[in-house]
């Protein structure tokens, strides 16, 4: 696995680990003391870690394989809903109606859980579902699209349509997922109070671990011949096919892997956000993630993570200062990235460093030749 764990990856892992430990240590210190990190900040950073995982999953299919999905938010949201079911079940009778059923079911007059809610009170099953449901959706969607050789902008458009259709479906009360209110008012996870500071710290740590684990998985895939094949598909799909690869299957595998990771990220996001509703299926959310990847620099995993932190930090800051301004700023950002930073921040940085390194090397070689 040496090829997977190359130098940029080692640097990224070291930096992320340091950052994570610093935040967790800060969260353990009494509030108000030096270097302490408040629970809100911890949750915020935990959410950013989840969004970074989602950005990684987009980068894997878009950056490496050239398949631009404008509906990846759907996988994230689906994972979030799957785990949200677990959280809802563990509200128990502490809800408004003091029923074992989730409040929204009582209010629409249901007297028992629909079949697809069965078993969702089991943590392991809920986690499995959070990965499996998006993976199955990706399998069905990808199989249909890739097999009929839908690609390029057409794929992007239908992926967007998919998430939009799901959003409309999840708005329906009769679907059994809480309609437009979605899930909220969670109380506990694995028996721990969600309001407790230690719980939010643990969730943050889990989010950071998930991000790093998926990052590593992406590196392993990218460094394998399959990763080469994915890049080959991006460069020239026809050639890849004539080299003997079943391009549809390669695409499907990577797409499903990416969707499962996005689902797990969504699952971890929901307890930290405290809510999930159909708006997480909104096309805009998926586009935001794509912009994160573009801004960070696609095809470079650390770029996706950096982009996710940058864009979401900007979003948080702006929403605090000037609610409503975000959409405009986001639009500007979108245009600016496309026009000025086609390779993203990471790409520009690499070019800068690369040019400097080349000049250094060239200078040295020149000196040797002169000597």
């Amino acid at each position: 696995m040496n090829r997977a764990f190359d130098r940029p990856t080692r640097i990224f892992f070291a930096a992320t680990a340091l950052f994570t430990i610093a935040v967790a240590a800060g969260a353990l210190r009494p509030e108000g003391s030096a270097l302490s990190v408040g629970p809100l900040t911890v949750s915020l950073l935990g959410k950013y870690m989840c969004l970074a995982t989602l950005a990684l999953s987009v980068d894997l299919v878009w950056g490496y394989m050239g398949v631009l999905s404008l509906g990846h938010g759907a996988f994230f949201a689906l994972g979030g809903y799957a785990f949200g079911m677990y959280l809802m079940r563990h509200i128990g009778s502490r809800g408004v109606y003091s029923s074992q059923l989730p409040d929204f079911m009582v209010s629409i007059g249901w007297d028992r859980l629909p079949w697809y809610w069965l078993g969702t009170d089991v943590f392991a099953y809920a986690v499995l579902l959070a990965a499996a449901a998006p993976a199955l959706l990706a399998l069905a969607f990808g199989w249909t699209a890739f097999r009929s050789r839908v690609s390029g902008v057409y794929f992007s458009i239908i992926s967007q349509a998919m998430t939009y259709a799901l959003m409309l479906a999840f708005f329906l009360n009769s679907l059994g997922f809480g309609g437009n209110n979605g899930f909220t008012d969670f109380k506990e996870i694995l028996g721990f109070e969600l309001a407790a500071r230690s719980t939010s710290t643990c969730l943050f740590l889990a989010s950071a671990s998930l991000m790093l684990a998926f990052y590593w998985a992406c590196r392993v895939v990218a460094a394998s011949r399959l990763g080469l094949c994915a890049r080959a598909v991006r460069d020239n799909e026809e050639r890849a096919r004539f080299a003997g690869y079943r391009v549809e299957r390669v695409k499907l595998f990577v797409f499903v892997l990416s969707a499962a990771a996005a689902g797990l990220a969504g699952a971890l996001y929901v307890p930290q956000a405290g809510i999930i509703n159909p708006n997480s299926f909104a096309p805009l959310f998926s586009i935001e993630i794509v912009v994160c990847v573009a801004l960070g620099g696609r095809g470079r995993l650390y770029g996706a993570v950096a982009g996710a932190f940058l864009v979401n930090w900007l979003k948080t800051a702006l929403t605090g200062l000037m609610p409503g301004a975000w959409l405009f700023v986001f639009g500007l950002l979108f245009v600016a990235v496309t026009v000025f930073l086609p390779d993203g921040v990471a790409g520009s940085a690499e070019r800068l460093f690369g040019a400097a390194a080349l000049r250094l090397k060239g200078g040295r070689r020149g000196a040797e030749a002169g000597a």
Partner: protein
Amino acid sequence: MERKPGPDGPPVDFAAFPGGRASASGPQGGGATSGASEGSPAGAPSGEAGAATSPFGDGWTPKAQRRKEHVLLLEGISVSFDGFKALDGLSLYLKEGELRSVIGPNGAGKTTMMDVITGSARPDSGEAWYAGTVNLLDKDEVFIAQAGVCRKFQKPSVFETLTVSQNLELALKAPKTVWSTFRARLSGGDRDFLAGVLDLTRLSGEAGTIAGALSHGQKQWLEIGMLLSQKPRVLLLDEPVAGMTPQEIERTAGLLESLRGRCSVILVEHDMEFVRAVASGVTVLHQGRVLSEGTMDEVSGDPRVVEAYLGGAAC
């Protein structure tokens, strides 16, 4: 495939190409076995193929015999695009180890013929057989490529953002399912083999170069190198010397020369000098049919050929 070129043998043992088929992966999917991996072309025709087309069902008819004797056989192939006949009853026979040049004015149907052979175009009528037993018309591109029919496109197509050696590694004949591709590692034998291919295509010095940065001629060679990595039994080259300098053309002729007898080649070219240089049987296509066949001198003396080329040039 465990076959290491000995230190005293040639760097790349191309004679092993056809043999390589048997031990390497069969084409994946569907559990179908490639006819190409079933014994030598001289072996008895497989029951499946013989029974399917022989009216006598005894596996021996002139047609079955023809199929057995040629590594590639096209008979009566017609392809039409919205009523326009790009191929019109084309027949072409290629023997094992033969190098055949196919020439013809623009729009003669040369590329379309390759599309038919490689499974990317479906003819309205006709038959296409590979290695005597593989019915090319009901196989797809990937199966055909894995079975050893490898194609160079008219427009040079390599993986532009990958290095030269990565391009070759990807093309390398190996099991190509998702899982085996994920697990694949270059063995020592693979490395030696790829080094041989690099050598043959004069790209040894460019192994680490990004393919997009190569010159036009080098890209063409790289694409040929990728085909060689696939250990082909039949090589289809669509205008391999287009855009090359005279020196590069000469080297390419040398490259083709070194392949002679090791795999069968169909060479589509407009460059008559080059076709003459590689000295092979020539088939002239015109308006989707075979106009003339013979040596270069024979066909260029054929008044119908002269007429076709002049007519083509006039419009």
